[in-house]
Structure formats: structure tokens, C-alpha cells
């Protein structure tokens, strides 16, 4: 399908937060021999473990399945030995740690042309290989149901979050894998596969020359790159409808499964943030150890390690592991300091969307931001703030309050099926009352999912 260059969906609302520490556009090979899969990365999944410590696995060996939906299988990203099955409070399964043996042995799922297979055969292959969890659905942002039929599938090729990886660079030279991945996705829906690119910024031919998909152009500040925003503008979700989505590196993994017959969990990770000495891209595999990604490449201050970006990522410790869905590792300073009269001083160097600080005069300034809340938690007093960074035809404050009082009907009426916690991340950042909004939205989504099942 041709790119329709005339129609660009322009999004005005939103906010780009410019941070120091963007990854230099080179991909370095990273030798890494510690990996882990974290069941907590998968929303709503209760793992039933299939292996034990000391077992030898190949890339593609099943590690656990979901107790609630036992047709969803999670497999090892590398070949090696199960080092530890780490549990937390109430025996919650935290990490399945794997020591890679460096031999890169794969379970053979057979290389096949997806166009010669049926939809059922395609799904089966994705499922048994453990690639299926890369395909998620809206509403709820959970792993897609292999038995369901989505009305369309969305792939966002650009990420507008702070310090996000440049997908043009990431997919460079992988055009065949990417196209095969898209062909697979096209078989999964009776509707369209929407490949969304950023107008004037996405240049990679891998994206712009894609076939078998509809290419849509977007422009605007974050959260324009979020699939939630793109779905809302192109094919909004009504009650009872399901849209699937995944991201470029997931499409590559799917493509490699069909072209080479293996679960090749290779990923390019942007290691970035103000506390990284030389931020760059590293080629490794899903679930790589944080310590090996970071090495001595960081400053000496007290730091926050984030798997993902600063808006939606997960805090990890230095001995932790990268999240399953994350293509980015951000390191910023911790903010555990007291600031004398901090609310009253002019705050020349502070970041704020509000014009009560001079920040608005310096639109292109890059910031070194820390994890301090910059104030106490208060009742929701200010209005009109969220609307500036929330490009949905939805009333964010009203939806949030409906979630807080657990009014199911109102949540549904106000459009909860169309949003995810990540879509509220900027609201949370700019909120004067310092409410943990993403946590509330997640609770609302979980509640809806429970009510609707």
C-alpha cells in the first residue's frame, strides 16, 4: 500500500521533555551472559513454572505458562542453565535467572513462509515459540488472546518518550525480517495492520517501503508515539472491541521466527540518561542483566536505574534485569535531598510545564532531572492541567475520579477502554497535587478486566 503523504494526523496536545544523555547513534555489540525473565512484566499473568534450578535450556525452551490462560507460553531467550528461580513476598515469582552458555542453541520451530500457512498455524507457531507475548491488546494492555480476532493491529514505529531509541537506527538492515513480521501480523486480523510513522522524521526505507500494511503519518509531541493515541485517532476502540499492537523490534522477532525458525530474542537497547557517561545503543537479548549493560559507564552519584523510559519504566537495581518489553535503559540521579524554600525560589534551572517557573522561556533546554517529587501529595485542586498533555477526546480528570470511586459504568462511558496507564504518564508528571495517576489508572483497568471477564 502506498504512503498517503497528504494526510498527516497532527497532534497538538502533549509535551516533549528534553533530557540530557541521548544515546549516540552507534550500535555496540554487548557480550552478556546473564539474563532473566520476570513474570511481573506481564500484566495479569500468574505463572506456573515448568523448569527447576539447574535445568539446561535452549532458546525457545518453555519456562512457564500462565495459569489463567494456559495457552500462553513463555520461553527462554537464550541457551544455558537455569541459575535461580527468585521469589519475593508471598512466594511471588520475581525472576527466572539464566546463565547463558554462549553457544546460542535454538529449538527448531521450522522456517516457513507465513503466506503458505493458515491463521491457526501461524498463531500456533507464535505461541509455542514464546514469541506470542510480544503481541498485546488494548484495552488493558495484556497479552493478546490467541483465540480472539482483533479488529485491527497497530505498530508504532516511533517513540516520542524522553530519550527514546531511534527505531530507524534499530531496524536498519533488517528489512526482510520486518516485512515478514508484518506479513505475519496481516494474517492475524481481518482488518488492517496500521504502521504508524512520524511525518518528516521517519526516513528508514524499512518502514516507508513496507507492504501489506496501511502506513499512517503522525506529527506532534509526546505521547503521539503511544499506540493508544494512534488507535484513538485512526480506529478508536468501542466497548467489546479489541485492537492488538506491538513495536518494531517485536515485529523483527516475529519475522526471524518465520524466516529462520528460531526464537531469536536479540534486541537493541538504548542505554541513556544524564548519569551515563557515554550513552549508546547495545545489541543484546531480551532480559539482559543491568550490571553488564551499565558496567563502569556511569557517574558516581546516587542513581536510579530505570528499565524503560523515565515516564513509564520500572525501577531496577544494579543486580536486576531489563524488562521484557523495554528497549531502553535510563539512568538518572535520585532526588533524595531537602531543598530549602524550594517552592519559593525563582527556580531558574527547574523543569516545569507551568509558567510559574521560567522554564517555559527556554523551550529547547535539556534537563538533568532527578526523582524528587518536588512537593507533597495533595487533593486534586488544579484543573485544566491534564487536558494540555492528553490528546484524547476524553476527560482525564473525570475519568480519573470515576476510577477512584470505582464507578464501572462511568469509567466505561468516559472511555477507559481507549487508554492505558502510559497515556496518563504526562498528566502524572505535570500534576500539581503529586498524585500517582498511573497507579490509579492501572487499578481501574484491572478492575474493568475483572468485571468484564
Amino acid at each position, binding site marked *: 500500500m502506498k504512503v498517503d503523504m497528504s494526510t498527516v494526523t497532527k497532534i497538538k496536545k502533549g509535551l516533549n*521533555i528534553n533530557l540530557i544523555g541521548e544515546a549516540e547513534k552507534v550500535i555496540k555489540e554487548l557480550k552478556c551472559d546473564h539474563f532473566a525473565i520476570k513474570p511481573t512484566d506481564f500484566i495479569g499473568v500468574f505463572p506456573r513454572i515448568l523448569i527447576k534450578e539447574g535445568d539446561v535450556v535452549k532458546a525457545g525452551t518453555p519456562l512457564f505458562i500462565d495459569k489463567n490462560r494456559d495457552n500462553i507460553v513463555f520461553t527462554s531467550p537464550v541457551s544455558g542453565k537455569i541459575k535461580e528461580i527468585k521469589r519475593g513476598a508471598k512466594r511471588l515469582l520475581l525472576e527466572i535467572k539464566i546463565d547463558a552458555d554462549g553457544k546460542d542453541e535454538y529449538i527448531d520451530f521450522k522456517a516457513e513462509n507465513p503466506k503458505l500457512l493458515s491463521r491457526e498455524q501461524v498463531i500456533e507457531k507464535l505461541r509455542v515459540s514464546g514469541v506470542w507475548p510480544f503481541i498485546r491488546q488494548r484495552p488493558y494492555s495484556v497479552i493478546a488472546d490467541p483465540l480472539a480476532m482483533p479488529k485491527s493491529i497497530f505498530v508504532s514505529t516511533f517513540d516520542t518518550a524522553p530519550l527514546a531509541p531511534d527505531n530507524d537506527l534499530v531496524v536498519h538492515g533488517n528489512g526482510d525480517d520486518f516485512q515478514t513480521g508484518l506479513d505475519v501480523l496481516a494474517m492475524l486480523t481481518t482488518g488492517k495492520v496500521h504502521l504508524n510513522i512520524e511525518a518528516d522524521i521517519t526516513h528508514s526505507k524499512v518502514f516507508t517501503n513496507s507492504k501489506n500494511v496501511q502506513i499512517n503519518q503522525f506529527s506532534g509531541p509526546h505521547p503521539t508515539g503511544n499506540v493508544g493515541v494512534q488507535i484513538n485517532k485512526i480506529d478508536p476502540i*468501542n*466497548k467489546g472491541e479489541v485492537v492488538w499492537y506491538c513495536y518494531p523490534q517485536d515485529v523483527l522477532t516475529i519475522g526471524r521466527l518465520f524466516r529462520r525458525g528460531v526464537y531469536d530474542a536479540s534486541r537493541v537497547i538504548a542505554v541513556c540518561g544524564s548519569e551515563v557517561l557515554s550513552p549508546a545503543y547495545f545489541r543484546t537479548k531480551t532480559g539482559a542483566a543491568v550490571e553488564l549493560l551499565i558496567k563502569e559507564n556511569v557517574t558516581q552519584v546516587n542513581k536510579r536505574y530505570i528499565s524503560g523510559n*523515565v*515516564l*513509564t*519504566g520500572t*525501577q531496577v537495581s544494579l543486580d536486576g534485569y531489563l524488562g521484557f518489553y523495554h528497549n531502553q535503559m535510563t539512568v*538518572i540521579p535520585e*532526588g*533524595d535531598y*531537602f*531543598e*530549602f*524554600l*524550594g*517552592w*519559593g525560589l525563582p*527556580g531558574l534551572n*527547574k*523543569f*516545569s*510545564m*507551568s*509558567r*510559574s*517557573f521560567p*522554564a517555559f522561556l527556554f523551550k529547547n533546554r535539556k534537563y538533568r*532531572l*532527578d*526523582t*524528587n*517529587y*518536588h*512537593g*507533597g501529595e*495533595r*487533593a*486534586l*485542586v*488544579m*484543573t*485544566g492541567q491534564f487536558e494540555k498533555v492528553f490528546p484524547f477526546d*476524553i*476527560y482525564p480528570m*473525570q475519568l480519573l475520579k470515576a476510577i477512584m470511586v470505582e464507578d464501572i459504568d462511568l469509567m466505561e*462511558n*468516559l472511555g477507559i477502554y481507549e487508554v492505558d496507564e502510559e497515556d496518563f*504518564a*504526562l498528566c*502524572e*508528571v*505535570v*500534576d*500539581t*497535587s503529586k498524585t*500517582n*495517576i*498511573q*497507579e490509579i489508572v492501572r487499578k481501574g483497568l484491572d478492575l474493568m478486566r475483572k468485571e468484564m471477564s
Partner: protein
Amino acid sequence: MKFLRDFLDKQKPHFVKGGRFEKLHSTFDAFETFLFVPNRVTHTGAHIRDAIDMKRTMIIVVVALLPALIFGIWNVGYQHYISHGMAYDFWPMFGYGLLKVVPIIIVSYVVGLAIEFAFAQSRHHEVNEGFLVSGMLIPLVMPPDVPLWMVAISTAFAVIIGKEVFGGTGMNILNPALTARAFLFFAYPSEMSGDLIWISEKADAYSGATPLGHLLVGEVSKLPSEWAMFLGNIPGSIGETSTLAILIGAVVLIATGIGSARIMLSVVAGGLAMGLLFNLWGINDYMNIPAHYHLIMGGFAFGTVFMATDPVSAAQTTRGKYIYGFLIGMIAVLIRVFNPAYPEGMMLSILLMNVFAPLIDHYVVQSNIKKRLKRARALVKA
């Protein structure tokens, strides 16, 4: 500031659970966070947060109130000396005003904050900053000669009945400062109306009527000049007379984005629209005064900039704000012209629309809901 930090860190254990002054935890916390932005770090959701907080927001509103306050203090002195036929320099007038106004401010803050602290303590909440603004708004809408005990009672009423019974800052339906003013107006009508109260210790022979007072009795010819009403060297409540000083505050609020420009503009539009409508009708003198007079008389400007924009009691949706503001302006002028019992319509108009704001939002949100349902239904048909 290290010694201050060290001192607080040393005292802190006494105020946490199990400490000697456990019951004063909220109070300690209020002072500590006033001096130092806390070292609390994010643990869920976004790892970085905007530098703005409630303290900064509220302090900017207080700053925006300063021009009206300073002018008001001077004007209290000026009106007093003028009524006695004396003319002095700036400082004696300002000094006289200070002696009158500062005690009112102190009473308002002490009474209000004491109640706020007590409620925060009993609820184990942090003390909210909302009263930093309310405590300044209350003196500014008082007549200069108001007895201090009345300030105390009305402040207490506003904080307890107007705010805390609904759950505290952010939960109240009515604007607390206007609740205090309304309480005074209805509880002590004889002390709160007429021509005596608008000038502090007025000379008996001097007419102390406000512009609205003149109009109420049909004395259009006695209105001060347009210019005087704009600058504000006329009798009236302490902070409300100078449209100019209030406009400076409006610029601060709009420039920082703290006050809603949408509400301010639509209140003005509503007031002008109603004034013009009356001009067309024109069956009495009050109806025939130029429409823009309504903007510079009485509490219209002050209410527009500082009261109608209170985010908690105003409409919360963008479209709702326009409707809410426009209706405030219209109804304020309507009450002024039509209801002889209440010379100042602004206070009642804002309180009335405070009550209707949730309803306005309800209908705005309903239209969004209907649109979504329609989209879903179109799908079923297709």
C-alpha cells in the same frame, strides 16, 4: 541552611508515631515542608515530576493579591482622612490603613490556620496550602471597619462549614472566602450594609456611599468619575476598589497560568452582555448606566479575578468554564439592577454558580459520553 536542617532532623523523631509530640505531627510537617521541599522520591509511575507544587501555586496567588492589598491599605487611610476633610502624604494614610487592615489579616490567618491545622491533625493529613490564599482573600473582601470578632466568626464559619465538613481543600462546593463574606452579610445585616461601614471612622457629615450604594437609591449623578472607579480611590471593601490593582493581579495569574483566563474573560463578557442588554431595555437610570461601569464598580473585578477562578469551586471542564464564567457575569449584573435588597450581586452570583458548576460540568461530560455511545451504536448498525 545546614543548621536549620540539622535542627529539624533532630526534632523530627519527637513528632512521628510514638514520639512525645505525636499529636502535633501535621503541624511539624507543615513547618518542615514550608522550610524545605521534602526529600521524597518517586517509586511508582513517572520517575520525574514537574517542579510545581501546591505551595508554589498558592504563593503565586498571594503575590497576585499584593497590589490590591497595598492599594487597599492606602485607600483605607485615604478615605478616612478625606471624610474628615484632611489631606496628608502617602505614609500617614498608609500607616493608618496598616493599623486597620493588619489586625484583620492576622485574625483571619490565625483563626483559619488554627482550624486547618486541627482538622489536618485529626485526619492525619498534611496541612493544605489552600488557606494561604483564603486567609488573604477574606480581609480583602471585608469593609474596613468590620469588628475583629466578626472576622473571626465568619472565618471560622467559612473554614468549618464551607470547607472542612466537605472533606477539606479540594472537596468544597462553595468558595471559602465568599462563604465568609456571605455569612457576615446575612448574619449581621445592619452592621454590614448602609453607608457607614465603607470608610473607617468616617466623619458623620460625609457621605460614605459606594457607587453601588448610590445606584441603589437612584443617585446616578453622585457616581464617582469613571477614572476614580478604575483607580479605586473610592469607598468600598478593602481590596475591591481598585480595578487597576486587581488587573495587575490578573496579569500575574494569567501569565503564570495559575488563574484561568477563560473564566476571567467569560465573566467580563457575561457582565458586559447583561449591561448592554439593560441599556437596550433602559426603563430606569440604573439600566442606562454604561455597561462597562459594572466592571469597575463594587466587587466585580475582584470577584472575576480572584473568586470565580478558584479551581475547586469553579467548573472544571474547558467548555464548562466558559459557561460558568459567562453566567456569573450576567447574574451579577442582573442581581445588582433588579434586586434592591442586595446591592452587591457579584458575591451572590459566584456562590450561586459555585453550586451549579458541577451541573454544568455534568452536561459537558454527558455530551462527550453521548458521542462515544453514538460511535459504538453506528458500529452495531454497520
